[in-house]
């Protein structure tokens, strides 16, 4: 057995070089269904939406009639439309507060669960439960009953705190607490991912740091956090995408503001309902939305993309 393994190792390189083309072909064969799908169902729609966002386009029967109007849609979205800019502002405020908060929370919980703790399985089951049941009608039903909010305003201590600090931060805190439970409900998967990352950390590094006189606090900032950066990035992307696609959180936000719609729903009404401005405008809003999400993810990527390792990892 040992012999065979050794042989395969030594013969690997020439084998691959000789059959490079074959390897290409088999690789492409394996991912062929996905490539077809991604071209038809994702790339082409994005290109189409991009094109139509510069058009005045409406449904006529079953086909789309489009006339090219350059930046009219974009101008309308920011200058004339009364709802969309407020929605975007609310959404940005929300997500800027919620993502760091939920990531911190998830990291905290996973670090606690990673310790020697009794009933670890039970805690994990509880914290992961909401990720299973979270769903449109269920949560919106619970929300309409007011069972998902911890109201700051009704609480004496809360309102006192909010009144002391500047208005802007007060607003941020109110946003956070209004959707606290909802946001926490989404942290099930980030907690799991962090746990997986923590379990892979080498305990000996901590021991070495402790011998050198590092406190727990220092070893958290100098060891845990840097080695978790790729996990933080993945979780940040996950949270941003989930929060942007889930209409629930936004619904809760915008219901206080202008309307009871999320951005996604607002976009959908543009082309499904008679009062909307049509297909082209919907595409334009979608493109703007995509741009905002990409920018936000890019920001996290700038901070958390792992730097090139100074010491090369052996093995693999």
């Amino acid at each position: 057995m040992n012999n065979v393994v050794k042989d395969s190792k030594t013969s690997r390189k020439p084998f691959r070089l000789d059959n490079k083309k074959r390897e290409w072909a088999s690789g492409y064969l394996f991912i062929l269904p996905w490539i077809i799908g991604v071209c038809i169902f994702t790339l082409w729609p994005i290109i189409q939406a991009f094109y139509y966002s510069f058009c005045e386009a409406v449904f006529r029967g079953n086909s789309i009639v489009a006339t090219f109007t350059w930046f009219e849609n974009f101008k309308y979205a920011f200058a004339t439309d009364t709802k969309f800019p407020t929605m975007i502002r609310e959404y940005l405020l929300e997500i800027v507060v919620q993502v760091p908060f939920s990531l911190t929370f998830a990291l905290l919980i996973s670090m606690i669960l990673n310790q020697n703790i009794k009933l670890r399985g039970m805690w994990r089951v509880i914290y992961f439960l909401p990720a299973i049941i979270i769903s449109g009608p269920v949560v919106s039903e619970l929300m309409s009953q007011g069972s998902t909010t911890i109201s700051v305003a009704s609480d004496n201590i809360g309102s006192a705190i909010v009144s002391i600090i500047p208005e802007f931060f007060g607003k941020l805190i109110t946003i956070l607490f209004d959707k606290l439970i909802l946001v926490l409900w989404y942290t099930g998967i980030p907690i799991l991912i962090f746990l997986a990352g923590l379990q892979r950390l080498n305990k000996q590094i901590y021991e070495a740091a402790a011998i050198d006189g590092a406190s727990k606090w220092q070893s958290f900032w100098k060891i845990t956090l840097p080695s978790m950066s790729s996990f933080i990035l993945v979780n940040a992307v996950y949270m941003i995408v989930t929060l942007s696609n889930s209409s629930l959180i936004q619904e809760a936000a915008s219901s206080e503001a202008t309307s009871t719609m999320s951005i996604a729903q607002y976009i959908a009404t543009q082309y499904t309902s008679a009062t909307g401005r049509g297909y082209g405008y919907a595409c334009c809003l979608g493109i703007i939305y995509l741009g905002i999400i990409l920018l936000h993810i890019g920001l996290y990527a700038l901070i958390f993309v792992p730097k090139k390792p100074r010491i090369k990892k052996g093995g693999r």
Partner: protein
Amino acid sequence: MLPFLIVLIVLALVAILIFTPNPIIVKLHGGPIRINKKKVKKVMLGMNFTDGLVYKLFIYIFLVIVSFIFLYPMIYMLLTSLKPQMDLADSASGLLPSSLYFRNYVEAFKQLGYLKALYKSIIVAMLPTLFNVIIGCLTAYGFARFNFPLKKLWFAIMIITYIVPTALISIPRYAWYAKLKLLGSILTYILPSSLGQGLCFALYFMILYSTFKRLPVQLEESARIDGANNLQIFFRIALPLVIPSVITVLLFSFVWYWNDSETASMYLNIVKAGQDAPRWITLPIALQNFQNSLLDRGEREIILYQGVKMAAVFLSILPLLINYFVLQRFFVEGIEKSGIAGE
């Protein structure tokens, strides 16, 4: 209240420890008892704080409070669904029902058309899930094991498919389905998922991809030397080794399709030409329809119907709950083992 009391008591004990001289002498009937302060301190604060009593108490109280927050909506839902109408009409009544009232469930069962919707839900969630898993495994294996030109580009595209908001993608898709007269048919689910564009596909891909990546190459190489071709290696060697991750993906995909009421109401809750009612009424849609039918009624009746509504909500997620508690090990294992962000 209880957690706060415990915290107060612990804080008081710590304060006593700090501000009294050593040793503490407690005068009792049988004579004074000497308490060695150092020993007490060791029990309370531990050798390096994290193994002390104070720290442990603090952690467990924190965990309990957080899990209460996580469970509160569920508890609220269950309790409300068991309330008789008397309790619902009386706004002064608390969280607990005065008596258990199971008629709500009977009513909700009828209103939802439960068995039929359940059957439809299972089909609508299961079929695309199977495709997700099959295509997911193939694609992940292709990316993990083979080198081919433009691999990085395709990988980036994979990530982009995850980031693009569904709101944007669903606009052209909706137009196509309308053109092809597919709206209201389950093909709107099967077509994208059979080509790897199902719900959250990129996430499943990442789980499977990092699992395949962690398999030792030597196994496959030795099979290749023994004369196996790529397909044989994939099916006989690689696939059996990633079964836990496959199960995780299967479960997640099922759950998320089950819960996805937005896509369902967009593509499925539509009357197709030649039919008098939508064919694929899943549980979330049935629930939505039931809620909308309540909106037409008066204020008072809405309040009285709250119990039934909550019972309906509970019934619609009941299969998922059973699923979760039976198989919860698998939900967690795949993600923990593969570690999406690994290398």
